[in-house]
């Protein structure tokens, strides 16, 4: 069929119908009549433009060519004044006529302007179109003393924020005693007001504006009760009124909006309505999301296919920089789970009815909003809303494992924070910070601490350690899956079970797991790696990197030292330092210099940046020390060479001391060997960092070879069984020393572990060799540092001052 369809109204709805219809039928003739002079644009983003002052043309939904390419006839600045569906004719304001087989009304709505005196004075603006946007912004920048925004709904608040952003004093006057009453409950609203105040938006509640004071232009507001507010810029945002003029004239049934059925049909044959002008099942939506669903159904109806629109669950996001607010569905339910922390301005709530999710409000922390809004839309059944809220904070610290370090400055793990609440009797973030000292250092983790405490005090029970909290997958489950289904890359896993697709926090963990299970014969995907493991150096606070070459057992040579010195000179390295790991650190290196530096050094990577085998500290032992009982250097170097290049769940730092005086601090290392009378003591699980723990003795053996064997076996056991980021000092207590001994010292189990380590080791290679064989031509270079681009791309890459094109 080759009908001719006319769409009245070029808003988001008109455009959406246009596109949905063209998708279904390449031939149907489409005419889009736009009352506004600009082609269809994204009204939603006007709020942004008010802040940024960007040119409204950037809002255009489609470039001009699009209409020609999709042969859609676009009439701009034309108003449809009359139409006769019977003989399929309509008239435009310029008198010209159009014929149609089917008519779609997408006439949207007009801002509601209350009939109070002074409403049409200069200086009074609605907030609906680009012209309003420009007028308001100009006034705010042009020395308006104070702006008043009438209406504390979503739109009013966005307008107020936009005005404040121009440095103009602004007051929101709201009829009720709380903001956004349509979307928020009292609890969230109570936190929203202060947040706005923090952004220089004043709010006056229970203000019933009875008049706008003149005389020539707006000078203030007059409230019921006699109070006044001086304001020379007034923005009215009290609601919208569907545009029904044309519909009524044609004889289409209208109530609050144009009444449509589930197929988006009006009472007149061949006449449909879509968008803000339409009333479906008694509801008129003031939102974009429903429009696209409606448009798809309308397009189906127009092409004579079956389709039904069953209504939408409204959801909204406050587009105010500095305030995170997402809400969906009903503000209140029969049962409500709330996690709140007034001090931090966090309010997260799930409302349920008859065991189903009916509403969500996320303020101050909107993590997981996608999932929750989806749940509200689907009305998903739910048994433990509080748990659901916690799980939803996908990337949130809330679902990191207990072993994860939250505060690096003070080495506080998540478990410590929870314990402070559950055992320590703390109830506020401040108390928890005081007792654990978390967040008292650089402070970058305070928000994380606050949220964890909020969740913990919110009654959240102990959750298992998920490698992927988003998909609730434990390390064991995933390892099994990878093994059984022969998955070789992080994206394989993502494809297989969605893990790694969401917050992304688990990607490095997956990358390790995939490499470990595949004995390093996995398929490497660098995007899943932390920057340190993409460029094999440790990122510093200023974005430069540190280079720590390997010095087996802390032993070096004059020649190595000379090369290090030369590199330090040649590349003007800001700091050369002896590390706590018995080797040298070149700090402050530029990313693009890394390959050349590695080449000049000609030394292997020390993996100081990776979750991998780090150092093996040794003491001089029998070689020189008068007390030496065992060849500490010999064993240390042997260990480091045998383990070099193996990645581990968390860093593994070792030490070998030639006697119990223990100068290499082997008893506080992840793996440590101490020479004793008649043999060696092999220890594991030590720590002298954020935590201090004496290493457990795995075994006392009588030969150096045996010591190496036991230590090596433990290393593989740890590689295969520890959670990601679980140091040995947490791993051994979790598994239990006896169990560890049983497996590591067991004849068969031990042999099997060593064999798997041998295979994994065989597939390792010094990552610094990527200097000559990069993972990607731009592995180490930015787009605007072409001088370091291996294939010598020219400075052409740096764009000319914005605008110009080549």
């Amino acid at each position, binding site marked *: 069929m080759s009908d001719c369809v006319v769409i009245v109204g070029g808003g988001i709805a008109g455009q959406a119908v246009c596109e949905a219809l063209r998708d279904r039928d390449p031939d149907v003739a489409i005419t889009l009549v736009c009352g506004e002079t600009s082609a269809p644009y994204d009204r939603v983003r006007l709020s942004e433009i008010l802040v940024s002052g960007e040119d409204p043309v950037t809002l255009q939904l489609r470039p001009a060519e699009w209409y020609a390419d999709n042969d859609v006839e676009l009439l701009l600045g034309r108003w449809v004044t009359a139409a006769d569906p019977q003989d399929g004719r309509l008239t435009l304001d310029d008198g010209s006529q159009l014929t149609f087989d089917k008519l779609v009304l997408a006439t949207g709505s007009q801002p509601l302007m209350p009939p109070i005196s002074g409403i049409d004075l200069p200086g009074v603006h609605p907030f609906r179109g680009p012209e309003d946007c420009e007028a308001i912004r100009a006034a705010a920048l042009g020395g308006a003393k104070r702006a008043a925004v009438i209406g504390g709904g979503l739109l009013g608040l966005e307008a107020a924020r936009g005005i404040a952003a121009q440095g103009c004093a602004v007051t929101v006057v709201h009829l009720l005693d709380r903001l956004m009453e349509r979307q928020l409950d009292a609890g969230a609203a109570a936190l929203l007001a202060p947040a706005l105040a923090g952004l220089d938006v004043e709010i006056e509640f229970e203000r019933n504006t009875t008049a706008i004071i003149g005389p020539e232009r707006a000078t203030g507001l007059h409230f019921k009760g006699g109070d006044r507010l001086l304001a020379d810029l007034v923005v009215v945002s009290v609601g919208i009124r569907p545009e029904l003029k044309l519909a009524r004239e044609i004889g289409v049934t209208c109530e609050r909006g144009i009444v449509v059925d589930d197929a988006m049909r009006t009472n007149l044959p061949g006449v449909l309505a879509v968008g803000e002008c339409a009333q479906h099942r008694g509801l008129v939506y003031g939102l974009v999301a429903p429009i696209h669903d409606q448009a798809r159904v309308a397009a189906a109806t127009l092409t004579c296919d079956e389709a039904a629109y069953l209504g939408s669950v409204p959801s909204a996001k406050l587009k105010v920089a500095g305030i*995170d607010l997402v809400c969906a569905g009903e503000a209140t339910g029969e049962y409500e789970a709330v996690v709140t922390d007034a001090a931090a301005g966090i309010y997260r709530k799930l409302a349920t009815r008859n065991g189903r999710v009916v509403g969500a409000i996320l303020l101050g922390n909107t993590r997981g909003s996608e999932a929750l809004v989806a749940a509200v839309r689907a009305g998903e059944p739910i048994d433990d809303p509080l748990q659901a809220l916690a799980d939803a904070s996908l990337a949130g610290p809330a679902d990191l494992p207990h072993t994860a370090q939250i505060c690096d400055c003070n080495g506080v793990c998540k478990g410590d924070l929870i314990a402070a609440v559950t055992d320590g009797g703390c109830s506020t973030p401040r108390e928890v910070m005081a007792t654990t000292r978390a967040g008292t250092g650089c402070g*970058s983790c305070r928000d994380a601490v606050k949220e964890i405490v909020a969740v913990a005090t919110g009654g959240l029970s102990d959750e298992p350690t998920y490698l992927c909290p988003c998909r609730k997958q434990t390390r064991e489950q995933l390892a099994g899956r990878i093994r059984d289904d022969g998955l070789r890359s992080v994206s394989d896993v993502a494809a297989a079970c969605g893990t790694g697709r969401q917050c992304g926090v688990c*990607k490095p963990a997956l990358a390790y797991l995939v490499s470990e299970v595949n004995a390093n014969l996995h398929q490497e995907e660098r*995007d899943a790696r932390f920057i340190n493991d993409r460029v094999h150096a440790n990122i510093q606070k200023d974005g430069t990197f540190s280079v720590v070459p390997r010095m087996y057992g802390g032993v070096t040579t004059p020649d190595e030292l000379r090369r290090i010195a030369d590199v330090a000179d040649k590349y003007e390295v800001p700091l050369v330092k002896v590390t706590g790991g018995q080797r040298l650190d070149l700090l402050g290196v530029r990313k693009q210099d890394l390959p050349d530096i590695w080449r000049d050094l000609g030394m292997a990577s020390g993996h100081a940046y990776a979750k991998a085998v780090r150092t093996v500290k040794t003491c001089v032992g029998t070689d020189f020390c008068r007390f030496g009982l065992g060849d500490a250097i010999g064993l240390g170097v042997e260990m480091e060479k045998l383990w070099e290049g193996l990645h581990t769940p968390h860093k593994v730092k070792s030490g070998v001391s030639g006697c119990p005086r223990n100068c290499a601090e082997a008893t506080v290392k992840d793996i440590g060997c101490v020479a004793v009378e008649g043999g060696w003591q092999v220890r594991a699980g030590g720590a002298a960092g954020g935590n201090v723990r004496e290493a457990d003795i795995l075994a006392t053996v009588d030969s150096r070879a045996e010591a190496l064997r036991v230590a090596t076996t433990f290393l593989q056991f740890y590689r295969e069984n520890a959670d990601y980021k679980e140091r040995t000092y947490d791993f051994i207590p979790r598994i239990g020393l006896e169990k560890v001994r049983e497996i590591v010292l067991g004849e068969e189990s031990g042999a099997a572990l060593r064999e798997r380590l041998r295979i994994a080791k065989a597939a390792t290679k010094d990552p610094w060799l990527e200097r000559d064989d990069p*993972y990607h031509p731009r592995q180490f270079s*930015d787009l605007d540092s072409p001088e370091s681009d291996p294939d010598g791309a020219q400075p052409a890459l740096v764009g*000319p001052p914005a605008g110009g094109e080549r």
Partner: protein
Amino acid sequence: MTFACHVDDVPLGEGRVVSIGGRRIALFRAAGGWYALDAACPHMGGPLADGIVCDRAVICPLHDRRYDLETGAALGAGDPVAAHAVQLRGERVFVEVTAPVPVAA
């Protein structure tokens, strides 16, 4: 729109820095498409282009703040970062640096 790079210049799932009109922009090639943010994290200037990209968001490598690649909104704590429009024309990537240079509050 300003020419930024060719599609192959950025490894899939990673970001790279490009200067446009003297402004440092982090250009991301995510599974879902191309995105551009100001290069420096509003928190302490961390290099966002070096962050892990997932679910239309980037995680700053320094202190793990997350930003929506499309809008620049901070997911969780923190100020937003300026986001810019990216357009793919065949093999070539163009960026429109529109958002104003943020002024520290």
